[in-house]
């Protein structure tokens, strides 16, 4: 038999001035199942809470309703008081008669009547509340960071420096990502390699970081605190423990004319190669598709040249299974393919290049050792035209969003060019200059005022070749006139796009993505570094276009989230989770479709002789976030949400 205690708070005059609390207490005292119905000036005060505790103990109450302020205010306070009085804290409900009654109504009779309804409704609910226990989940204190660009490195270092283990996985043969490709960085013009490579070395040598390069995440299972991850170690054909990185094999390799991906096709590499000179680890890999031995079974020149026998052509892919407690996804971006922009002539004219290619030309470690030279004839260009938004903010052929970094890097390119080629002329076609950020607007002003970049507001309609020059036809909308510029080089500020396999990869990890393939945060404003899956965090440009400062900031934020998670041995979670009734579940999997968190699995039920009886839905309480969408979806009423059960809600409605 229910014995409910109802405690009506005056909240000073806040409630009592509009709700007749004495009348309310008397009426509620008559309600079936109510054992105690009392009023008091401030139940949240210490004596108020003591009186609640005493009433629970003296009357052996089976549940309490606090008719007071919003549960968002003091639910935790009164649940704690319940626990202290020996009553399960989930047998406490709050009737919100302040924010949603006394503060918003003027007529005292009407407000009192409404307060009665609200309180009765909560009494009916609490009668049907179950004792719940917080869910405890153990935590494996090891983080997986996917992606070895600046975001991944930063996150890994932050976690490792706090003393926790990190596994850093990079699919390329070296750490570095896109930042290693850049020449100088805005808005300070410091050399990218100079600030990047120490970080790479630090990550590789850190005792708490296990670095896995040339490796890919194959499979992720489990839930927050308890992920099981399978990583494929792609065969390098070079023993990573033996190799000293002397580079003899690379100088001897007969295949020398492979287009170098790191230099965006502007340079050449061998079949056994490291992506760039400062690679970390400085261990080469054999590119199986170009190697002569893998093509026709003969060569092995590299093997013969290696004095310590580090090369092994029989190497196979290996798998590593890991338990990790948290995952940071920092898989980065790609540059959009400009094939759709035939009018700009990319691919047709060798001197029409992308911004990233310009970075390689300007980089001291690049194919031209930092000299700005035309790919076609090796000459120094005298006039360079930059086309901004070559893909961004173009719903018809490119992407709808702003890639955020292009205004800044184009200004930087114009500056670098004018520093390297004195007397050279730069023209920049732009739509808007978006230079929001610390020191950013000043930077673009500097490009215009000190380095004489000429900004033309308008779009380019066509680029063609005439007498060895690239003719750029565009419009200057501020003058309202078409313009044609004779250029020696055209640089396209191409859009940032997600990795081509971003969507497939999101499915492996179990996180949500947007229409483009950028990974979705749990809340754009308030939870910007958490994915919608508990225990999986985001860093860098895999979430949205970002520059280096933003990527680093987000990486550190993610790392701090991981460290907060690792600060406890066990996670305690609100027990508001769904559970299935395995007897009535028909296995229609409607709930599986409805669940935003992939928290519902298919479970096999066997009889004693091991025969499969049926397959039913089963909720993983570690993953369930307690939204209850599955409950409403279920056709056979076989799933219910603790704390908001069907019975409770129907009773609440009937109490009104």
């Amino acid at each position, binding site marked *: 038999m229910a014995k409910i205690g109802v405690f009506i708070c005056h909240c000073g005059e806040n409630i009592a001035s509009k709700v007749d609390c004495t009348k309310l207490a008397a009426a509620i005292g008559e309600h079936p199942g109510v054992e105690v119905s009392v009023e008091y000036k401030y139940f949240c005060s210490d004596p108020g809470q003591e009186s609640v505790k005493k009433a629970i103990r003296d009357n052996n109450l089976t549940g309490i309703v606090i008719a007071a302020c919003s549960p968002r205010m003091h639910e935790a306070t009164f649940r704690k008081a319940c626990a202290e009085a020996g009553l399960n804290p989930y047998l406490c409900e709050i009737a919100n008669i302040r924010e949603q009654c006394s*503060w918003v*109504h003027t007529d005292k009779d009407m407000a009192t009547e409404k307060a009665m309804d609200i309180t009765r409704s909560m009494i009916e609910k609490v009668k049907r509340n179950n004792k719940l226990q917080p869910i405890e989940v153990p935590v494996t204190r090891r983080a997986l960071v996917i992606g070895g660009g600046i975001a991944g490195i930063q996150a890994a270092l932050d976690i490792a420096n706090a003393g926790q283990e990190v596994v850093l996985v990079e699919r390329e043969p070296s750490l570095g990502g896109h930042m290693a490709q850049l020449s100088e960085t805005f808005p300070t013009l410091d050399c990218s390699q100079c600030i990047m490579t120490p970080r790479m070395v630090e990550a590789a040598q850190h005792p708490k970081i296990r670095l896995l390069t040339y490796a890919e995440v194959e499979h992720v299972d489990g839930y927050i605190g308890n992920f099981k991850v399978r990583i494929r170690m792609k065969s390098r054909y070079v023993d990573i423990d033996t190799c000293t990185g002397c580079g003899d094999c690379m100088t001897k390799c007969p295949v020398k004319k492979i287009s170098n991906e790191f230099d965006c096709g502007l340079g050449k590499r061998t079949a056994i190669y490291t992506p760039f000179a400062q690679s970390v680890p400085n261990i080469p890999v054999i590119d199986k598709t170009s190697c002569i031995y893998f093509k026709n079974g003969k060569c092995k020149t590299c093997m013969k040249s290696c004095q310590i026998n580090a090369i092994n052509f029989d190497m196979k892919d290996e798998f590593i299974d890991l338990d990790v407690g948290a995952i940071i996804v920092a898989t980065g971006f790609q540059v959009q393919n400009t094939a759709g922009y035939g009018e700009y002539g990319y691919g047709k004219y060798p001197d029409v290049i992308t911004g990233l290619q310009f970075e390689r030309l300007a980089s001291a470690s690049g194919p031209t050792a930092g000299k700005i030279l035309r790919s076609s004839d090796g000459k120094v260009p005298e006039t360079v035209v930059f086309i901004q938004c070559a893909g961004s903010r173009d719903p018809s052929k490119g992407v709808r969003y702003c890639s955020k970094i292009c205004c800044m890097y184009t200004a930087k390119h114009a500056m670098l060019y004018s520093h390297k080629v004195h007397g050279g002329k730069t023209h920049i076609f732009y739509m808007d200059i978006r230079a929001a950020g610390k020191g950013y607007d000043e930077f673009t002003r500097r490009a215009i005022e000190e380095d004489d970049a000429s900004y033309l507001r308008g779009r380019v309609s066509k680029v063609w070749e005439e007498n060895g020059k690239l003719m750029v036809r565009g419009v200057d909308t501020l003058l309202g006139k078409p313009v044609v510029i004779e250029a020696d080089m055209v640089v396209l500020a191409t859009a940032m796009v997600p990795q081509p396999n971003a969507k497939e990869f999101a499915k492996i990890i179990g996180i949500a993505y947007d229409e483009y393939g950028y990974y979705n945060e749990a809340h754009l404003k308030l939870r910007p570094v958490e994915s919608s899956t508990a225990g999986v965090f985001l860093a860098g440009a895999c979430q949205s276009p970002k520059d280096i400062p933003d990527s680093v900031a987000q990486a550190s934020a993610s790392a701090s989230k991981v460290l907060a998670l690792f600060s406890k041995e066990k996670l305690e979670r609100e027990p*508001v989770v769904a559970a299935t009734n395995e007897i009535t579940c028909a296995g229609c999997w409607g709930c599986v479709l409805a669940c935003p968190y992939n928290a519902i699995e298919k479970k096999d039920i066997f009889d004693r002789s091991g025969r499969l009886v049926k397959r039913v839905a089963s909720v993983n309480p570690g993953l369930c976030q307690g939204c*209850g969408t599955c409950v*409403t979806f279920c056709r056979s009423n076989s799933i219910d949400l603790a704390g*908001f059960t069907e019975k409770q809600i129907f009773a609440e409605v009937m109490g009104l």
Partner: protein
Amino acid sequence: MSEPFEPKIIAFVCTYCTYAGADLAGTSRLKYAPNVRIVRLPCTGRISPMFILKALQKGADGVLVSGCHPGDCHFTHGNYHARRRWMVFRSLLDFLGISPERVKFSWISAAEGGKFADLINSVTEDIRKLGPFDQYKELIKETETPATL
């Protein structure tokens, strides 16, 4: 006419957006009609059409369902499920001869206390114009089985 008809309206709201918006209306001391009773749920995705029917059966003259704006759902897409359910449910109500006007759907964020107050006032006015939900009351008379728990 003696007194104006005071409709009884039951609102099903999600705790993250609309319930918080209602609290904000309270802390801002905005005044609105006292006809609405709120049932708090974790997410609009939890709202079953059966709850709405139960509310009408219990004698509500109108029902309000409100949650986070599209794209803002705390649980990523519970409100989309709710919207889809509502689209289907509305035609069912129409088929049953119940005016779909009696069941309102809206989005109120945690920051929209003013919008919440306006919504409650306009819903109350709309339902007041529709009058008491007599269809149900006649049905009760016929069957003489009032809704029980």
